[in-house]
């Protein structure tokens, strides 16, 4: 546990050493969420859309998109931050020193993931506050506990995805292209901006992505859209139980491969 805390503390101190980066984390929640509202207004001219309601189970298009946009932050920070975590250590010149210590790399990655989850939570909290204050989103205290429950289930699964992203970086080094592709695929196949029921393929692929179920649950909780609490949580738990061991296994296999090929510290 101490390693994880020290990893988080180290990453925080490095972040604080870059003032522009802090400005980004303060301003970007607003910049991220407002275009979604404007997009909704431009498309449907108000908050309601009956055509949209037939697909999504709720006719409240803007709140639907806002929830998708806000909570997908966790997905994208998991992919990007964990994908780039080892890349940054390569640039610092510290990767080999970390990997020659008696700590399993996954604990270090977990520290980085938790730090980024905390950052994402701050990011999301600011966005929700903006939406509550300016765009009519309502949150009651009774909604917070189930929201946190599903967010924890979501984050566990995302750590599995993050381990895979970190492994990819270890393997191909410059993983920006792949991570972008990963991001676009997630955008395409998860109900962030539209219901995946819009096409049979999106509906099929979305079934294996944890964010899909988390968004169904969060929209259910926040917008009152009907959803099966037990079934959704069990599916999320099941995906977590598959994706986390898969991420760990893939990372270990790729770490071993890089140690065999001597490409660990290569840029």
């Amino acid at each position: 546990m101490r390693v994880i805390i020290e990893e988080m503390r180290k990453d925080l101190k490095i972040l604080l050493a870059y003032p522009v980066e802090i400005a980004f984390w303060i301003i970007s929640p607003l910049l991220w969420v407002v275009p979604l509202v404007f997009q909704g207004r431009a498309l449907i001219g108000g908050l309601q859309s009956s055509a949209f309601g037939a697909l999504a189970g709720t006719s409240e298009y803007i709140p639907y998109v806002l929830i998708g946009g806000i909570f997908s932050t966790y997905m994208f920070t998991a992919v990007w931050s964990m994908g780039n975590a080892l890349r940054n250590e390569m640039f610092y010149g510290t990767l080999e020193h970390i990997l020659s210590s008696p700590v399993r790399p996954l604990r270090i990655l977990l520290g980085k993931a938790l730090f980024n989850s905390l950052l994402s939570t701050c990011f999301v909290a600011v966005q929700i506050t903006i939406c509550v204050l300016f765009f009519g989103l309502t949150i009651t205290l009774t909604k917070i506990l189930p929201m946190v429950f599903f967010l924890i289930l979501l984050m566990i699964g995302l750590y599995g995805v993050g381990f895979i992203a970190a492994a990819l970086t270890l393997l191909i080094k410059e993983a920006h292209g792949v991570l972008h592709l990963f991001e676009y695929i997630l955008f395409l196949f998860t109900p962030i901006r539209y219901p995946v029921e819009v096409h049979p393929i999106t509906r099929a692929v979305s079934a294996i992505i944890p964010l899909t179920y988390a968004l169904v649950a969060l929209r259910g909780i926040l917008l009152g859209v009907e959803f099966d609490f037990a079934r959704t949580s069990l599916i999320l738990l099941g995906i977590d139980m598959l994706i986390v061991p898969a991420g760990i296994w893939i990372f270990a296999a790729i770490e071993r491969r890089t140690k065999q090929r001597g490409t660990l510290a290569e840029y």
Partner: protein
Amino acid sequence: MLQTRGIELKNLVKVFKKKKKDEVRAVDGVSFRIAEGELFGLLGPNGAGKTTLIKCLSTLLIPDDGTAIVGGCDVNADPLGVRRKLGVLTGGERSLYWKLTPVENLNYFAALYGVPRSETKERIHYLLELMDLFDKKHERVERLSSGMKQKLSIARTLVHDPPILLIDEPTLGLDPYFARFIRTFIKTELHEQLKKTILLTTHYMDEADELCERIAFMYNGKIKALDTPHLLKKRMPQEQVLEVKCVGDIDDQAFSSMHEYGTLNLSKQDGFTYVRMSTENPEDLLSGVVEIVRDRARVLSVSVTSPTLEDVFVHLTGASLKDDTTQQ
């Protein structure tokens, strides 16, 4: 074999495959044993396989064949056990977090190496005092000089008080003052006072000669010779070396008529060219060698010296330890 508390290698092999059927045997059947508390040097030019060997021992590379035991732990079977007993120091500056202070860096690595929380503060205080960095403890690393960064890297390597140290080119890129400090520190503090088992790699022969109790010559992935510096020098068939220091470019072809009289070592350092001819009778060669040099360069000095480890290395391998040299 597993009882050793030092380091033991047996037929260690590491092969890098580049393309199909194209491979480099970076470590090619290396065997040696380093006793507990010994300061052992691995001397060889760049590309000899020294760093690859260090990476195999520090579990950053998986050997293809052979065994390596570090402090009683097998690098393949028990890599975490190996890592607990090792401290790895490399040359160059990029091994620390530049945006953190020395205290923050050491605190982080103490956590990685499982130094108990109750001992960490005292240990960091001791190391910063030892490395004369206490006044800089709250400065960001990026504001420290290269020498100070290397001192801090040493402190980081020692933070968990490992019994075995792998030190890879420790004075690389340092100015003479800090290079001298690091060498003295390795010999007096780490070796004589703290009794660490040390494997030091270098391509500076003076460094190896000054510091190491035994030296292995490594070239093309193989150990070419292993002995004390004194006994390695005894392997030279000739007991004297004629050295001409000059300014200008000379290639070994110019000395083709002299090969039968001894071993030629032609090297460049700090802008000067050194022609070193190992021979039993330097007086007999003096005029011939000086004449060849004078036709091509400006002679600065002529002297007769004893063979150095570099001469022995050239004699045994036909290659020089320096990058910018030709030899025969």
